[in-house]
């Protein structure tokens, strides 16, 4: 039962992240949204490690997969942050700043 709760929570996180990725225009929010999405996937994966048919026996493979996934997501987030900063530096469009104002207005 708890297992199902975690899985549903993971699905909820995934959809929330997906919505934010589509709806928010600010680059930092988009990066955060992707992170929330990947956390949701990892939550489902960890929940699937519990195998009720063999009681007390926990499948170790999903844990290894989650660890790999976390490493991937950290490095990808770093790259996305660097790219966002580079865009801000090279263009005078105020890529990060201008859009923050826009999203504050929409948030109020």
């Amino acid at each position, binding site marked *: 039962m708890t297992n199902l709760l975690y899985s549903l929570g993971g699905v909820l996180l*995934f959809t929330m992240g*997906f919505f934010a*990725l589509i709806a928010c225009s600010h*680059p930092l929010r*988009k*990066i955060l949204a*992707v992170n929330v*999405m*990947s956390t949701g*996937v990892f939550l*489902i*994966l960890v929940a*699937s490690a519990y195998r009720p048919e063999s009681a007390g026996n926990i*499948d170790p*493979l*999903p844990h290894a*997969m989650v660890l*790999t*996934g976390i490493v*991937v997501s950290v*490095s*990808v987030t770093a*790259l*996305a942050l660097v*790219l*966002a900063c*580079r*865009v801000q530096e*090279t*263009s005078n*469009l105020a*890529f990060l700043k201008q859009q923050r104002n826009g999203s504050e207005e929409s948030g109020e």
Partner: protein
Amino acid sequence: MMLEASSLIVCPVIVPLTAGLLCFLSRRTAFFASLSACLANLVGVCLLLGRSLSGPASYHVGGWQAPLGITLRIDGPSLLMLLMTAVTGLGITLYARGYFSFRIFFPKRIARHERQERFFWPLWMLLLAALNALFLSADIFNWYVTLEMVSVSAAALAALSGKPASQIAAFRYLLVSLLGSLSYLLGVVFVYKVHGVLDLNMLRACAGGGEGMHLALALMSVGLMLKTALFPMHFWLPPAHANALAPVSAILSGLVVKGSFYILFRLWFDVFPTCVSPAALNLVGILGAGAILWGSVQAIRQQRLKLLVAYSTVSQLGYLFIAFPLAYLQNDGLWSAVIFMALAHSCAKSAMFMASGTIFLHFGHDRINDLAGTRKCLPVTAFAYAIAGVNLMGLPPSGGFIAKWLLLSSSLASSRWWWGIVVMVGSLLSSVYVFRVVSRLFVVPEDLPVRQCLPRSPLLEWPALVLALIALLLGLVAPYPLAVLDAGRISLMLSGGGGP
């Protein structure tokens, strides 16, 4: 002897990876390290090709067997994709050398150009290693890891040109491919929940359904289609591909999109053929038809050469998907046409991007209307562009012709003529956008102002021509790759049937 064959499988991953690390260590030998890695990769793949005609081979990394360990496996489709990557990769490496030395030769903004070259080589080698690992991997989670490796290095390469437009495009490209990978990963999680295994052979053995497999397959497919830029999800491709440096555009358009397509193809045709419903096949076919028409119309409307070539990638990817409903009906033969078309498109499209890059370098712009009489300055490049265009249109001796012919004949044979009409209309539209450029390249107007021709390096022009000619001649040697595919498939089915 057998041991040697199975350890050769590691070579396409290890060699470029080592070269990529060497490129970081020594800036001066970066090109030679990359070139020798590409040559060694090609030789290794050719050796594997000779060996594996007898059947697929596999290699267990670290000696761990399938349920836990990472397995690298090689069969017909993966061999052909490896060969495609090796040949195109060698051409791109040579071209990139010519491209960067041409740019560094002119002292304008030399520091920036040197920095670009310094970062290009290691990233390109890492991308090559990741792509080869993707084609070799034999479990669905490993595919996720290699997909992410590919998208990280591809996004970094796309941002390399330093222009704000290309960096914004690269940022969007990275986000889109992350979204695609996450959707794919969620599908992998569901598959694992249902079956409890990740290895392809085991999944194939226990395929046939199970609750939730449709949802899992749908999630994986949508993610991969997003990464392959299928029609409504293609929005990220033209800016990312057109704003990158020319060798990078060739890599992204020729090779990177084929990686995610290969996984999609494998999942639908090889691993879960029983879970695929006719409605889903028709939907994919309709999206492919939309891609062909929309991409061609957009390509015709473009004013800039590189954007035109990028939109033509969108339309050519549609052909790969329109083959899905057709190939499913005919059980044998046609799915090799899909791989064959990917092969031909990879060579032709990278040649086309190289030629447009050379034209851009010489004129400093790529406005199509101002390109009249290019053949006077750049005869080889104009010729290469035309030959690659012949392949995209699908005129007779080319590889594109063979693939389109297989599609047409099967659509007529199965009396689903509407797909055939889309293929023909697409070819007509593609001839419009090819001739729109070729006519300007080749017709020298009377009052052409005398342009000073910059000194050209052979590396800048010849790799494009050679790749375009390979794509053209692929039609003449068509039986050979098709035989490789069949050999791989037959033994693959035998091993699948005789397995546990």
